[in-house]
C-alpha cells in the first residue's frame, strides 16, 4: 500500500478507514460495541420476533458465535474476512452432528431473521456523511447507473446459472 493513500487529507476513500473497520483487529473494543448493537437487535426483535426473556439465550448465542469467529480470524495466519469465520462457526455448531445443536437451533428460532438487520440499516442511514452527498453531486449519477447495472448483472447472471444447474 502506498503511504499517500493512507494519509488522505480530506479523509476520502483512504485505505486506513477500511482497515479500521476490520473488527477482528481490536477485539476488546469490538466486544463492547457488539454488546451494544446486540441490545439494539434484541429490542428490535420484540415486535415481530419474541419477547425479551425468550430471545435472550438466542441473542447471547449469536454474541458468542461472533466473538469466537473474530478470535479465530484474528489469530489464523492467513486472511479471510471476519464474516466468513463468524459464518463458519455458526454453521459448525448448528450441524446436526454437533452436540447440542438441536438446543442451539431452538433458541435461535426466537430471534427473527429480518429483525436483526433492521438496526443495521438504521446505523447506515445515520452514518452517511457530507462526503457521500458531495460525491453524488459531482460524478455520482454515472456511478449510480453503473452500480445498479453491476448489481443487476451479477444477480441475474448468478440466478440464471443456478437455475440451469438446479
Amino acid at each position, binding site marked *: *500500500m502506498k503511504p499517500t*493513500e493512507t494519509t488522505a487529507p480530506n479523509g476520502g476513500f483512504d485505505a486506513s478507514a*477500511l482497515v479500521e*473497520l476490520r*473488527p477482528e483487529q481490536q477485539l476488546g*473494543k469490538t466486544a*463492547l*460495541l*457488539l454488546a451494544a*448493537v*446486540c*441490545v*439494539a*437487535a434484541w*429490542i*428490535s426483535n*420484540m*415486535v415481530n420476533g419474541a419477547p425479551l426473556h425468550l430471545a435472550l439465550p438466542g441473542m447471547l448465542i*449469536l454474541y458468542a*458465535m461472533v466473538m469466537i469467529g*473474530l478470535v479465530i480470524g484474528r489469530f489464523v495466519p492467513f486472511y479471510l474476512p471476519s*464474516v*466468513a469465520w463468524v*459464518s463458519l462457526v*455458526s454453521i*459448525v455448531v*448448528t*450441524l*446436526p452432528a*454437533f452436540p447440542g445443536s438441536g438446543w442451539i*437451533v431452538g433458541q*435461535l428460532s426466537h430471534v427473527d*431473521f429480518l429483525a436483526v*438487520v*433492521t*438496526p*443495521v*440499516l*438504521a*446505523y*447506515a*442511514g*445515520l452514518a452517511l*456523511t457530507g462526503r457521500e452527498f458531495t460525491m453524488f453531486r459531482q460524478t455520482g449519477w454515472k*456511478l*449510480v447507473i*453503473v452500480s445498479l*447495472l*453491476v*448489481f*443487476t448483472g451479477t*444477480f441475474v*447472471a*448468478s*440466478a*440464471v*446459472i*443456478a*437455475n440451469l444447474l*438446479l
Partner: protein
Amino acid sequence: MDMKLLLDWRLHLTVILASLLAEWIGILRIPLGPGTLLLLPLFYAFLVGVLLNPHLFMSMQRIIPKPVSNAAGPLIMISVLPFIAKFGSTIGPAIEQLVAAGPALILQELGNLGTMLLALPFAVLVLRMGREAIGATYSIAREPNIAVISDKYGLRSPEGIGIMGVYVVGTMFGTLYFALMAGYLASLDLLDIRALAMACGVGSGSMVAACSGALAEAAPHLRDELLAFSGASNLLTYATGLYVSLFIALPAAEWLYKRLGGAMFEEIRHETH
C-alpha cells in the same frame, strides 16, 4: 475512533427507536406491473436514519451531533455480524440439501462475471467513462474486491475511484436495491426461487440479508431452505470471491475494456482537455 462516541447513548437509543418503529410498520406489499414490490422494515429504518442524519438536516444536530453520526459508520460492520451468525445457523441444519445442490452453488459463483458483460460496455460506450469503468464493473465492489484494486492500482487511481464509487452506492442503496430486485423477480416467477436465493449470496452481509429476507417473504413455506441457500452462496462468495476477481474477473475486464476501445476514448479526452 473514540469509544465514548461509539457507545453514545443517543446514537443507540435513536437506532432502537427507529428499529421499533420500522418493525411495527411491518412488511408492505405494493403491486407493480406483473410483480410485487416488497417493502421491508429495514427500508423504513434506513429512511428514519437518513431523516435524522445531522449531515443532511442541520436541525438534527440537537438530537445527534455530527461526531456521533460519524461513529455510526464503524458500527454498521459490527452490527451486521450477529446477523451473519444467525444466517450461518440456517446453513448447518440444511447441510444435506446444500450438498445435493452443490454444483449449482459452486458454478453460480461465476455469475459474478456477469457484472461486466452488462455494466462495462454501458460504462465505456454510453457513459464514456475511462479506466474508472474497470474498477467500477469488474466485481460487485465489496471489501475483498477493494483489496484487490487497492493492491494493484491504488485507491486514488481511476480504477480505485471507480470501485469506491460502486462501494459507496452499494453501501447506501445496495441493500434496498437487492431486496427490491429479488422480491420483484420472485413475484414474476421466471426463475426457480432457490436459484434467486443463491444469487442473493453475491452481495455483502446486509445485501444478502435484505435479498433473502425478501425472498423468504415472497415464499414463506420455503423460508428455511432459501435462507440456507443464500447463506451458503454468500460463504462461497467470501471464500472464492477474492481469487475469482483477482485471476479471472480483473484480467477479463482489462481485455474487454481494450476491445471496447476504452483506451481510445481516454486519448480523445486527454486531447480535448
